[in-house]
């Protein structure tokens, strides 16, 4: 039904789904803008705990940067109609996404091992902020990973999966966004926080 109704869109116009996605990214930006603004306001008040970010967050950053490269390769291969490299890069991106998530959770564990409570009565809002912001970003990564797994499965099931590149294009835009968002958050938490 949806595709049939969308036939009125001109060829040179952007696909409406892309516009939906861009507007959606704008709203995610506002969500984190709200949180990081609140962070700055809170930091200037009394009772703020300064602490070092665990090293594992640096490794996670490298991993998610790498995954941006792999999904870009997947889009490139899809557009060239190369089935197997497309499948490979797509699955690799999904795996890197999962690795990123595991590393983030290890980051939380490292903080708690250093006696920095993230929640609970002994927690300082500096650590709680880091936790909430990172968890919310993690949920957005999780959404992307689920979509990546779905599209990867489809790419293995279908014989010719490179005809319609719209899903993987949308997915790559979202994935790059989640990557850039993390880099912003990482820079923010490490240097400003």
């Amino acid at each position, binding site marked *: 039904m949806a595709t049939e109704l969308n036939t009125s869109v001109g060829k040179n116009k952007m696909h409406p789904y892309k*516009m939906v996605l861009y507007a959606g990214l704008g709203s995610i930006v506002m969500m984190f803008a709200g949180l990081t603004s609140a962070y700055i306001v809170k930091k200037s*008040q009394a009772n703020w705990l300064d602490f070092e970010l665990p090293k594992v967050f640096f490794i996670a950053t490298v991993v998610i940067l790498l995954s941006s490269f792999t999904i870009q390769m997947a889009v490139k291969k899809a557009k060239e109609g190369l089935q197997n490299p497309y499948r490979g890069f797509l699955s690799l991106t999904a795996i890197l996404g999962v690795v990123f998530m595991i590393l983030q959770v290890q980051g939380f564990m490292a903080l708690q091992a250093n006696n920095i409570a993230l929640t609970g009565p002994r927690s300082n809002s500096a650590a709680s902020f880091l936790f909430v912001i990172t968890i919310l970003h993690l949920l957005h990564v999780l959404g992307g990973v689920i979509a990546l797994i779905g599209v990867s499965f489809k790419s293995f099931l279908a014989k010719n999966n490179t005809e319609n590149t719209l899903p993987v294009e949308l997915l790559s835009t979202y994935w790059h966004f989640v990557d850039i968002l993390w880099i912003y958050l990482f820079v923010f938490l490490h240097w400003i926080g």
Partner: protein
Amino acid sequence: MSHEAVLHGHESHGHDDHGHHEHHDTFLTKYVFSQDHKMIAKQFLITGMVWAVLGGLMSVLFRLQLGYPDASFPWLESILGKWAKGGQITPEAYYALVTTHGTVLVFFVLTAGLSGTFANFLIPLQIGARDMASPFLNMLSYWFFFTASIVMLSSLFVETGPFSGGWTAYPPLSALHDASPGSKTGMDLWIIAMALFVVSSLLGGLNYIATILNMRTKGMSMTRLPLTIWALFFTAVLGVLSFPVLLSGMILLIFDRNFGTSFYLSDIYVNGVGALSNEGGSAILFQHLFWFLGHPEVYIILLPAMGMVSEIMSVNSRKPIFGYMAMLGSLFAIAILAFLVWAHHMFVTGLNPFLGSVFVLLTLLIAVPSAIKVFNWLTTLWRGNIRFTPGMLFAIGFVSLFISGGLTGIWLGNAALDIYLHDSYFVVAHFHIVMGVASMFGMFAGVYHWFPKMYGRYLNNSLGYIHFWITLAGAYMIFWPMHYQGLAGMPRRYFDFSIWESFKQFAELNRFISTVAMIVFAVQILFLINFFYSIFKGRKVTVLNPWESNTLEWTTPIRPGHGNWPGEIPEVHRWPYDYGKDGHDFIPQTTPVGADETETH
């Protein structure tokens, strides 16, 4: 002559009620899980109306308490049980009623009910699209709203009652389970309902933006869009950019409530609980996050009404809208300023006075685009050939209320005055007139005007006139006196004023306000009867374009199917406001520009 052109152009489809896009739908896919934007619009409208009745009924109940603080109504106890022990509403129930009334009217009626209905209904029809960018997400948007409604409704029936800390949900009342009975399960359900609601409004807003930007028919440039669409576009942008911030604030609230963090809570002492173990939290932080949504929210409520009023006024004055670009520019200015004024809700929180003065300046700037809009509406009416349909009357009523309520906004925008008037009945009067009742009038105008397109039948005009005059007079009689009460220092949200010597003088006035409120509520029932009766039994629409309007929705069949136009989507050749041009009463957007046509509008 032009009228004939409209009919002639689509004569072949005039009786074709079943366009080829109408599939063999089951009851479930056509009326329940519909992906047709028109059906989704009706779902939003009717759910919104249910909430309007419930929210209105709540206001009648607490007005009963304010008007008759000493009286006892045994029937209240039989309806409300322990919430009205001895026939009088308990203070706890009073606060729950006020809180739920605010939440429901602001979010469920005037956001979902207003832009949910008209953005869904009008955007594809007026820009010339078969449906939304994503009909599926659009359907989800309604069902998230429906689920939010069910959760909010269920909070009315929990043992400890619904949330009772005010619709703004300030901590610590919202963050501490033990702060009040309503802060327990009631607040949990409130947060869940609001989170679902935010998702619903985001899904809707993303769709509206993408549809307007990407799916316009051939020739429909952005400056040929009806002002309704522009208003709905800015509304969607405001929603998409401000609701996520509220969600952030609420996520931090959830962590404070359930995981012991200290974003908003500090080591305050709570009666019956003792000192909290939290450290360093700031309740003011929540207010910043809340009002960063909260202020754009009032424009999310107001802009759709402004857009519809502009369209309805132009059609029924048989004149082009005065200053189309100025109208558009002022919508844009309001949308920008909406994000820069939130702290004017916080003048008494100990805000830095210098910062406060910046917010005063920015707030008062809103008067400029608002005044531009008001003068353009008045000059649109000026020397027009006005048709006083009920829709038009509500549109004029909107302008009246917007002026009355807007002027007191200039008072309250001044920190020097606001510090005195804050949390008084003056504020209640201001925002009810300018935001609540005015937007309600915009919504009524829209329903009366587009009802023939929605259901293929007319609403009863006589009932419409009765509805309008009593509601307009009633709205002023309810809220005008509240300005004087507020100036005399009467605080809002109080359960009973009869124990203060200084407010005893208002006992009779309070009773008057309560009586009028009940009459106005009764008249809304009359509107509901008119609405539902007319859906099934109203006079049938027999012409394609009953209001002789220029916009595209009137080129569709009388009862358009899914896909809106049975054949090709019509091409657009001109702006939508060619009324009274070159001796023609109106020239629809689909009419090509003639060789001898004058350039000016």
